[in-house]
């Protein structure tokens, strides 16, 4: 069950400070990388909610993000709907699809759950790849960003867009914490620890799974709609199962079930990818080896490792102080 610890607060503050520093000082490409990290961070938060706190290891979150991106693009370019409404529509759609997938897969566990979600992801991929309205393999362009000129922000400026994404990520982080502390979030946590007992206590398990998966899908949808606005071009590759696999890699690299860890993972992954791909086209090799090493080390990712090493000590020191304040500290971060 999710708890904020002193270490997690510290990490959040450092991450936010780093992102802000980057947002205000970076050149064009630095901003691109920052935005890429922020959007990936949204996706991995969505994944960590279901995988880290619900044991639902999904291999369709990339596809959900892709659905969000395509829904936004189609609604705003082809259907001529205003971007904010299109974005809301895209998020609602991914939420709905996520809910259905969560409901259907609720009876599957372990590897079957992974495979079932993979199947749904591939189904979406195949459909988008082949339906002419989506532009097939070539993808879709002509996407516009949200118009925030009312509050004096021009999102077409890279810096503004990066800051906007940072704000959205902050909101999503807050929402994630709220979801994990909500009834369904807590219950799902119980289901992950002991599904049989939760059922024996009277919980309609499939419903809780579907609800949280749907909420997670909505977050993936936000990430998708923003990814479409970031690149201004989308292609079916966005829905490919390897994107979901990479998202899972990021969650593991950062620390499953820590919420903060995947944020660290997203930053590390994107930076690593760019640094490596500048040097060699075989950067997947390095990522693959790193992934194997992290999983084999049995540490819970980078952040999990830090927590295991220093978390307990810091926690003990802060124990009394934090315990009493816990109910109030829900949203003081983000």
């Amino acid at each position: 069950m999710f708890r904020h610890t002193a270490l997690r607060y510290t990490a959040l503050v450092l991450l936010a400070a780093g992102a802000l520093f980057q947002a205000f000082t970076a050149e064009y490409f630095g901003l691109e990388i920052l935005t890429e990290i922020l959007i990936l961070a949204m996706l991995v938060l969505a994944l960590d909610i279901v995988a880290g706190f619900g044991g639902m290891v999904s291999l369709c979150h990339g596809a959900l993000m892709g659905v969000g991106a395509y829904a936004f693009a189609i609604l705003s370019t082809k259907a001529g709907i205003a971007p904010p409404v299109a974005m809301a529509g895209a998020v609602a759609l991914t939420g709905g699809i996520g809910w259905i997938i969560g409901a259907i897969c609720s009876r599957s566990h372990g590897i079957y759950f992974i495979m079932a979600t993979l199947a749904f992801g591939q189904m979406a991929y195949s459909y988008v790849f082949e339906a002419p309205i989506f532009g097939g393999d070539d993808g879709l362009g002509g996407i516009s960003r949200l118009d925030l000129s009312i509050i004096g922000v021009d999102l077409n400026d890279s810096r503004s867009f990066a800051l906007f994404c940072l704000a959205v990520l902050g909101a999503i982080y807050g929402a994630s914490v709220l979801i994990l502390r909500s009834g369904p979030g807590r219950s799902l946590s119980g289901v992950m620890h002991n599904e049989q007992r939760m059922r024996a206590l009277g919980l309609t398990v499939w419903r809780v799974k579907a609800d949280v998966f749907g909420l997670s899908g909505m977050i993936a949808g936000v990430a998708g709609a923003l990814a479409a606005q970031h690149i201004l071009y989308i292609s079916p590759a966005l829905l490919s199962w390897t994107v979901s696999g990479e998202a899972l890699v990021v969650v593991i690299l950062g620390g499953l079930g820590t919420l903060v860890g995947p944020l660290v993972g997203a930053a590390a992954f994107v930076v690593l990818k760019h640094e490596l791909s500048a040097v060699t086209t075989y950067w997947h090799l390095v990522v693959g080896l790193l992934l194997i090493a992290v999983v084999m080390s049995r540490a819970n990712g980078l952040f999990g490792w830090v927590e295991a090493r220093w978390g307990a000590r810091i926690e003990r020191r802060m124990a009394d102080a934090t315990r009493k304040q816990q109910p109030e500290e829900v949203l003081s971060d983000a």
Partner: protein
Amino acid sequence: MAHDLGFWILQALNALQLSMLLFLLSIGLTVIFGLMHFVNLAHGSFYALGAYFAASLAAVGGYWMGFFLAPVAVAGVGILLYSGLIKRMRKSGPMAQVLVTFGLIFVLLDVTRIVWGELALAIDVPALLSGRLSFLGVEYPTYRLFIIVLGLGIFAALAFVLGRTQIGAMIRAGVDNDAMAACLGINVERLFFIVFCVGCALAGLSGAVAAPLLSVAPDMGLQILIPTLIVIVIGGLGSLKGAVAGSLIYGFVQTFGAVLAPGLASVLIYALLAAVLVIKPVGLFPAKG
């Protein structure tokens, strides 16, 4: 287009041929899973390695050298990975296994690119199997018939080994309950090792067999992975019967889908998979009830 009987026989043979190729590939994966509860996403990479080894060996000593030695070479790679990685991952949860083998996919893909380059390699059908045979009133490529016969042969051999021999009984006991099998004095570790090697060798064999039919390219392992996973999930993890059923379902749906409903062909199989998982969440013929 109106089609005669010959057309449908031809298509049925096509479907059967595809099914057998997938069967060769999925049987190793499914038995490894059934016995060891180990999910090997890198199985497709072993298939690609098999094709590459076969292509390299065929260039030296002809098709049959590739055919016989490529599985051995892939089993060798399997042994390395087993002792280095997989042995230690056995007790981990499915997610850790999925991730380690996902990492392996990346690694093996780039290794093939480094060793063999980006260009597709060639391997010719051996003289013995080139040409066509008249069969049920249609002409069908001999090599494709060979794949069908090979698939059926391997199926028969595996059915015999699993059903009638002592090691088969041990494997079945291990699939049912590995702790119990260990109590019965079966050396479970060694059993796992053997099954893993055989599974890898079969993946290598299917790569070697597929190579003359397709092009040997770095991404062939990734391309085949999803169909293989669909096969074993539809069939039910861990069972020979499931692998056969899954392969046949995939082969026929894919082939006849392409003829009868071209627009739906690729979505069809995923929809079928989803339907199976809704109705029977553990597949049609799971190893355990």
